[in-house]
């Protein structure tokens, strides 16, 4: 169990060229608050007296865009979720089988984002 119950540590991997947007680094470690604002604003620490939800993948995507993305956010995020053509795997499972953005993340989860948008 997590030593700090109010934070969730995740392992994030980028592939298919996405790593270029994230300081050219494929692997990242990210720590999210366990409870986050409903509207996915990513200011840390989480402001009080706001409606909240447990941290989910949608929040993670906003967090990555706001805190880790170095350039060209439109290549990663579109309409509040990942751009069409980006695959998301949660612990090696297709995120469509886990509820996509609504999946609540737990400590030590591994989330992989792979872009398919390049030549073959």
């Amino acid at each position: 169990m997590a030593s700090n119950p109010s934070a969730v540590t995740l392992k994030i991997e980028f592939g298919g060229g996405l790593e270029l947007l994230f300081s050219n680094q494929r692997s990242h470690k990210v720590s999210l608050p366990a409870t986050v604002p409903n509207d996915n604003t990513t200011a840390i620490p989480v402001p009080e007296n706001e409606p909240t939800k447990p941290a989910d993948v949608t929040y993670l995507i906003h967090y990555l865009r706001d805190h880790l993305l170095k350039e060209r956010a439109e290549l990663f995020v579109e309409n509040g979720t990942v751009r069409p053509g980006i695959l998301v795997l949660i612990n090696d499972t297709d995120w469509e089988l886990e509820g996509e953005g609504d999946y609540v993340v737990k400590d030590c989860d591994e989330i992989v984002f792979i872009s398919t948008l390049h030549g073959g």
Partner: protein
Amino acid sequence: MLAILIHYIEYIGRNMPPRPCALCEKAKAMVKRPKTGQQICRDCFFYVFETEVHNTITDAQLFKPGDRVAIGASGGKDSTVLAYVMKTLNERYNYGLELFLLSIDEGITGYRDDSLETVKRNQEQYSMPLKILSYEELYGWTMDSIVSQVGRKNNCTFCGVFRRQALDRGAAMLHVDHIVTGHNADDIAETVLMNIMRGDIARLGRCTAICTQGEDTIRRSKPFKYAYEKEIVMYAYFKKLDYFSTECIYSPDAYRGHARAFLKDLEAARPSAIIDIIHSGEVFEIKEEIKATQKVQQTCQRCGYMSSNALCKACTLLEGLERGMANAGITDRGKKQLLQADGPTPENLRTIPFFEFKPTSTPERIVIEPS
């Protein structure tokens, strides 16, 4: 402690329960196939993906035992997975094929030079002979030098035309009967859309054929014609296949980008759209009166390659480059310019070496029975 418990309960309560694979019903479902919506485990996913390619190959009777087949390899996801799957199927179903890797170096710094390193690794990993042919040696121009003369709007036309010829020539040097390329379902659907958007009737009638055969060119097929790009990427990821994944530095300006963005949005709304577009493309029929106006195939006077005109496209483009009239093969104004240029083509202009195609196999084909 309470906080941990609450978080755990929320996690269990909100997240979807794990489901067994729809096919084997034993292992946990890891993939939701975009093509069918089926939720299947990893091993079943490998099996259906590979079997569908096998069915594509046998239904179209693409190969016969003893065929020498060149795999157009760029080091990218499609061609790497293609090489792996071809090798797997060749062994599993005894196609009896001799497989080669054929790679074209267009001379794009920062893109092609890196991806060629991947192809060289593929050569080791799959134990296949590799041939690399470059635009430099064939045409005397790299894509970088072409772009510096032509700009970024029409450069993809040069690359496509030059690459097509280069693949045929490379394959002829290897004495192969057949070239396979990694074009996937998304690519073909994009091409159908592009041809509609641009009103290109001639190409629209041809672009969904799985196998093209000219009398003067080597047969060329697309075993991944019905394989979704997303599935190819997942296959490569789960099998941990080594591939190179960056966009060509010149592609952001390409017309295909419009078709691709549109297709991705369609796929997000209804995943079967990709296959549906391909099927629509397959059943297009061109009216007889239009067919009659299409050009008859001949051979290029200068280099011997197949052509719709006296000079093939590659020679036309090359002449334009050499004479500093880069749009010669592309725009109408450019064509006029070339025709009005003083005198005939100068004697010492660089040309493409003469190409003579000798078919290595008889037209009659034996069907490979699925095992």
